[in-house]
């Protein structure tokens, strides 16, 4: 792992993921990606699902990637990286590696669309087969690349372009799918949640290093606040991410071997959920009197889940 002492240094460490990409100003994806790719000194081969990161980082004849990188389609980042990893194994066995002196690690990135939804089968299969790779979900809770449609990660009440608020609708009707736990249920040796944060930036860096170092399939679900679709100012990205953690809307934890849960950050005072929701335009309609019950429902769900996590941690399961 690179010896990086503060978050700003990550921004100035472009040797694996270059600037000049076309992600929105304030997009959390590039922060997360840079923290992950700099979390190891090993060489990397990366696959990326179709989505914001892919369309903004490899537009011919340019590329932001100074590591080997492949994009095939929307739903197969995990299958693609599993093939590359299998080739690494095969060439190792046959003593045919290109750079036998270097260790190569494998990382896949996908948005929540490419991970929770269309790429879920491919991810589940690759993880079940036990390939040695890290999958990072850049979870911005919508199909941002195609203009902000809902995904199964979109949370309750959120306005998206396919679950719009309207005269008779309050937006998204379903609660966010709990993908992190689903991945843990695969028995992955390491699963974690993370955020791009100014307060807890080391949390992601440490988790990424741990995940990459772990042999076998590992998964990090990184909340990626989306300035464009969540409707907040570009300079507020990490603040919004921090609020997700401080309100326990997106708690930080890790699970080893599918069982052993550890909360990696515990807010001293859990902030009310309004503090998180009120900062994002996608939830502004929830503050109308007729929708207040949704905020109450949000709080209830957050409290229950936070309680559940703590009980699991306590019980060591």
């Amino acid at each position, binding site marked *: 792992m690179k010896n990086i002492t503060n978050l700003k240094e990550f921004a100035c460490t472009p040797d694996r993921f270059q600037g000049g990409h076309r992600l929105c100003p304030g997009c959390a994806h590039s922060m997360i990606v840079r923290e992950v790719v700099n979390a190891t000194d090993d*060489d*990397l*081969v990366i*696959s990326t699902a179709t989505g914001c990161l*892919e*369309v903004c980082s*490899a*537009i*011919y*004849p340019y*590329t932001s*990637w*100074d*590591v*080997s*990188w*492949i*994009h*095939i*389609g929307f*739903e*197969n980042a*995990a*299958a*693609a*990286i*599993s*093939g*590359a990893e*299998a*080739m*690494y*194994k*095969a*060439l190792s*066995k*046959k003593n*045919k*590696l*290109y*750079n036998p002196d*270097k260790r*190569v690690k494998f990382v896949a990135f996908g948005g929540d669309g490419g991970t929770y939804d269309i790429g879920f*089968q*491919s991810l*589940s*299969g*690759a993880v*079940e*087969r036990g390939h040695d790779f890290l999958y990072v979900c850049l979870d911005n809770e919508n199909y941002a690349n195609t203009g902000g449609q809902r995904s199964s990660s979109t949370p309750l009440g959120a306005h998206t372009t396919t679950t719009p608020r309207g005269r008779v609708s309050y937006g998204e009707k379903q609660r966010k799918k709990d993908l992190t736990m689903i991945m843990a249920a695969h028995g992955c040796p390491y699963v974690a949640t993370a955020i791009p944060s100014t307060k807890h930036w080391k949390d992601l860096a440490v988790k990424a290093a741990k995940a990459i170092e772990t042999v076998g399939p590992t998964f990090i679900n990184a909340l990626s606040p989306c300035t464009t679709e969540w409707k907040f100012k570009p300079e507020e990205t990490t603040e919004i991410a921090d609020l997700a953690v401080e309100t326990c809307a997106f708690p930080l934890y890790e699970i080893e071997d599918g069982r052993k849960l550890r909360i990696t950050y515990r807010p001293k005072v859990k902030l009310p959920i309004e503090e998180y929701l009120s900062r994002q335009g996608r939830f502004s309609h929830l503050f109308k009197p007729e929708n207040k019950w949704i905020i109450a429902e949000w709080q209830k769900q957050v409290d229950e889940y936070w309680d559940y996590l703590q009980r699991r941690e306590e019980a060591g399961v």
Partner: protein
Amino acid sequence: MAQKYELKQREVWDGNLAAAHALRQAQVDVVAAYPITPSTPIVQNYAQFLADGYVDGEFVMVESEHSAMSACVGAAAAGGRVATATSSQGYALMVEVLYQASGMRLPIVMTVVNRALASPLNIHGDHSDLYLGRDAGWIHLIANNPQEAYDLTLCAFRIGEDERVRLPVTTNQDGFLVSHTAQVVEPLSDEEAYKFVGDYKPKYPMLDTKNPVTYGAQTEEEWHFEHKVNQHKALMESFPVIEEVFSEFEKLTGRKYNLVETYKLDDADIALVLMGSAFETAMLAVDKAREEGIKVGLLMPRVFRPFPYNEIAKKLKNVKAVAALDRSAPMGTTGALFNEVSAALMANGQSAIMTNYIYGLGGRDTTVEHILEVIKETNENKKANKRVTPLQGFINLRGPKLSFN
């Protein structure tokens, strides 16, 4: 190190076993596959080779054909020899990734056992899957029996991996009729076969991490056209390489393959054009027809993509009438072989009385007698010097005779 498999000079193999042995002998680095009838035994045989120590590459049993081809693309881009097998619905599920494999110029070899596409569900042989993938940018080779399935699979690696080509290749064999029919196959020894295929020559491998590469970039209107045309050019210019590989294979085995195969076509007045196992049935029908004085010959594109249209026109120069037999539901037009053979003749300033027959869908039997009937009808057209039979007919179809004009 993989163990040597002692083979007899003559083995009794079905098409699936023949293809599996060819994959084993090519010492493929990664096979990523998903089982589907009728190509399942290729994957099973390969798994057994692995279990017995005859294979030292990686064998990845994925959760779908989509992931099979995606893993193949990832593995091939990583930098090594890659192969898989599939049929029908599995092929259909792969289609998206077939285009990506060829667009990235990755020489993956896929042994396809041709089978009908649902609905209705059908596990038997026809060419619907082959036709579905015909514009996917792959080279498609056609094998009519287990020996050819073996031979062409070895050739496929040489062709696809050639620096002048760098394209993925399928070898096709008819479901059950070839894949499950045991015949005598004369294999090469493991050493000879590998020597013929040769070591994999990497080009832009991702695993050469000292020289990072980007695969699967986005190109919009400024560059997409150039990329696709380059890819097309590689296909169009692969003919001489294919012929070169065939000719080297002939030197090694005495078995001669051509871009276009013919049977008794030299002095023929009329010709049938068809691909796959029915070609061998048609050979018997031709012999019978010739006993009756009908001068008929056969033609088959051994290479379906790139389509050897000039070669086909040349071979059909002297025939007056041609029946093109398509083993795939044409769904709203004439069959693909009919269209392409007609175009090949037109483009070369030739003409023949063209008719189209659809046959063998979903494994429907096509016998010598059926083909003989087609020959006779085609001969009627020749005699009348104009088309007197329907434009499109259906061989061995139940119910009242159906045709389109």
